[in-house]
């Protein structure tokens, strides 16, 4: 391009808003820029339009957005912990833990006491001994035991009935006894009460015996599970520490024997 423009060129320049915008933003290549500058020198209309657009640019530059406190940042989410194995015995310390478990089990079983004599039925375990002593009222000079002394209770109730009977006989004539109203003699009422107490005692004894049997079964099942787990752990250790495994196996077997002996 030369510095001189024909009338056709001038018309094209005026019509081409792309050139105007390119010049406005300084994005014409050097030759286009020179040509458009020549055109501007001769075209007042384009000069005015260019000035107006520059002013508009100056005005819109004044629109500023608010300045918020953004402080975005991307944080890595903490990795979820791996699912805990359902049951896993680690070498050495795992076996030791299992041994402690078996020992605790054996101790608990060894402390079970089931007695039925003239005092009535008494059930006591190591765990019950550790329990809140206020949970059951102590009897018979055994502050931490939980005896079920049915005979003593029956005697106590018998004495209480006799006291009531005496009190009623003293007030005879003024109060009509309920037994008389129902057509039964006092002796018959007492007999009936004793029978009911006896039946209740029998039912309670059966229930306690069933519960003891259930606990014993549970202990036995748990012991089998634990021993199986210990065996599994030992099998894993066979290739790593034979002597250590033998030592733990002996220990477990001794405890097992001790447990069986105490159960008998």
């Amino acid at each position: 391009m030369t510095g001189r423009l024909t009338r056709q060129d001038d018309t094209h320049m005026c019509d081409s808003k792309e050139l105007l915008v390119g010049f406005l933003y300084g994005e014409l290549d050097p030759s286009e820029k020179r040509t458009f500058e020549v055109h501007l020198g001769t075209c007042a209309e384009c000069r005015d339009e260019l000035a107006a657009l520059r002013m508009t640019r100056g005005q819109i530059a004044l629109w500023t957005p608010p300045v918020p406190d953004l402080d975005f940042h991307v944080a890595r989410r903490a990795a979820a912990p791996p699912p805990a194995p359902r049951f896993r015995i680690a070498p050495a310390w795992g076996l030791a833990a299992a041994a402690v478990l078996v020992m605790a089990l054996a101790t608990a079983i060894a402390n079970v006491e089931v007695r039925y004599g003239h005092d009535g039925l008494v059930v006591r375990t190591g765990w019950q001994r550790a329990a809140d002593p206020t949970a059951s009222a102590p009897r018979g000079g055994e502050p931490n035991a939980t005896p079920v002394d049915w005979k003593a209770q029956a005697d106590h109730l018998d004495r209480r009935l006799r006291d009531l009977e005496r009190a009623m006989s003293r007030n005879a004539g003024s109060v009509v006894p309920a037994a008389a109203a129902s057509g039964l003699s006092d002796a018959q009422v007492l007999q009936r009460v004793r029978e009911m107490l006896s039946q209740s005692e029998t039912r309670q004894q059966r229930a306690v015996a069933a519960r003891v049997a259930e606990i014993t079964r549970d202990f036995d099942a748990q012991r089998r599970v634990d021993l199986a787990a210990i065996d599994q752990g030992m099998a894993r250790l066979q290739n790593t520490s034979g002597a250590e495994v033998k030592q733990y196996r002996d220990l477990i077997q001794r405890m097992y024997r001790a447990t069986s002996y105490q159960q008998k």
Partner: protein
Amino acid sequence: MPSTDEELVARSRGGDLDSFNQLVLRWERPIYALAYRVIGREEDARDVAQETFLRAFRALKGFKGQAKFSSWLYRIALNLCRDWMRRERRTPVAQAPEGIDIIELAGETNPSESIEDLVSRHELGRAVAKAMSHLPEEQRTAIILKEYHGLTFREIADLLDCPLSTVKTRLYQGLTVLRRQLREAGVESTFGK
């Protein structure tokens, strides 16, 4: 010497979260400003900006450097702005406070600027925001990218997936409409002239 965007992107793609957060720090204000000017609401613009960086982070593995990182961010942000406008079925809002807090303005000014000039500048800014909100979306976006973010015609064309000539036409038409609206609003001259 601060790392370039390309260096930070490369490290981020390798799993360096700090590098990505440096990119966030560098670009959060421009992206927020873009979103604010396109959709006109502060809180929504903040949400768009935040979502832009989350999406960029998730898609970083797929960013091969075929464009500038900033252009890639702008594209994500503009897509989110379009989604927002489609979802809200609304045109941008020229959000401006009712009154002018002189004390707040005074904190923004430079020492040589009088308080009268400061107030005039803010009023003019509000008038521009209102005029911009009336522009068609294509023209408004082209003007925002050119005037406030300094993108070249070519970058805008690539970003908006349109020919170079279309970008220039949108700019010309948009500026012409703004000029007329500002004149009608009584804003005759550039501030400070």
